[in-house]
């Protein structure tokens, strides 16, 4: 079974702090994704990566950056957390060109910025 793990289930941070969310997958997937999920808005793509050190902006990249130094790990960074970044963050991964690019999701990190 594909396993996608996220470093924390719940996180509380203060405004202005630098926040790191980590995601690790164990199935050698090329593609990795970061989404945020808010009620009524569904999943919105922040960034994705299709290879080590490669990244593409999604629909809402402002206020976020990412890092992918190793194939299995994809980090989301909030440079200076703000209250409007309070949300559920979901990481996902997929194989390139196989299975229709089906994505496998982690359990999510619920981030609260106070």
């Amino acid at each position, binding site marked *: 079974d594909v396993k996608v793990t996220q470093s924390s289930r719940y996180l509380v941070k203060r405004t202005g702090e630098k926040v790191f969310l980590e995601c690790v997958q164990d199935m050698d997937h090329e*593609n990795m994704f970061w989404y945020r999920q808010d009620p009524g808005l569904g*999943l919105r793509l922040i960034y994705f990566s299709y290879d080590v050190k490669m990244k593409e902006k999604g629909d809402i990249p402002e206020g976020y950056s990412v890092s992918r130094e190793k194939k299995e790990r994809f980090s989301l960074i909030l440079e200076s957390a703000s209250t409007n970044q309070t949300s559920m963050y979901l990481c996902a991964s997929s194989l390139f060109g196989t299975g229709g690019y089906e994505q496998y999701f982690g359990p*999510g990190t619920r981030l609260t910025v106070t």
Partner: protein
Amino acid sequence: AQSVTQLDSQVPVFEEAPVELRCNYSSSVSVYLFWYVQYPNQGLQLLLKYLSGSTLVKGINGFEAEFNKSQTSFHLRKPSVHISDTAEYFCAVKGGSTLGRLYFGRGTQLTVWP
């Protein structure tokens, strides 16, 4: 870019009744289509997917979906729901050259009442 419309944000239904969750997508030459389910405080898990072949796709937990190319729809159905089917359901599409990116609908909350 692709877009996905889930026509109902909330669907309440009584236990053992049939249910249909509707999904329409913007047209593309060829698409892959997915339905995911999310239980409270969890990540998304795949219910079923359409890649090619038969337009009727069967998934886990007794769900099925029908791909209709002329209507650009991929509606999810279950003939008899259980309390345990209460969850949020997301439709997603991959089309064209988008580096493995999926486009998600905003979700439909299915609530099953006893």
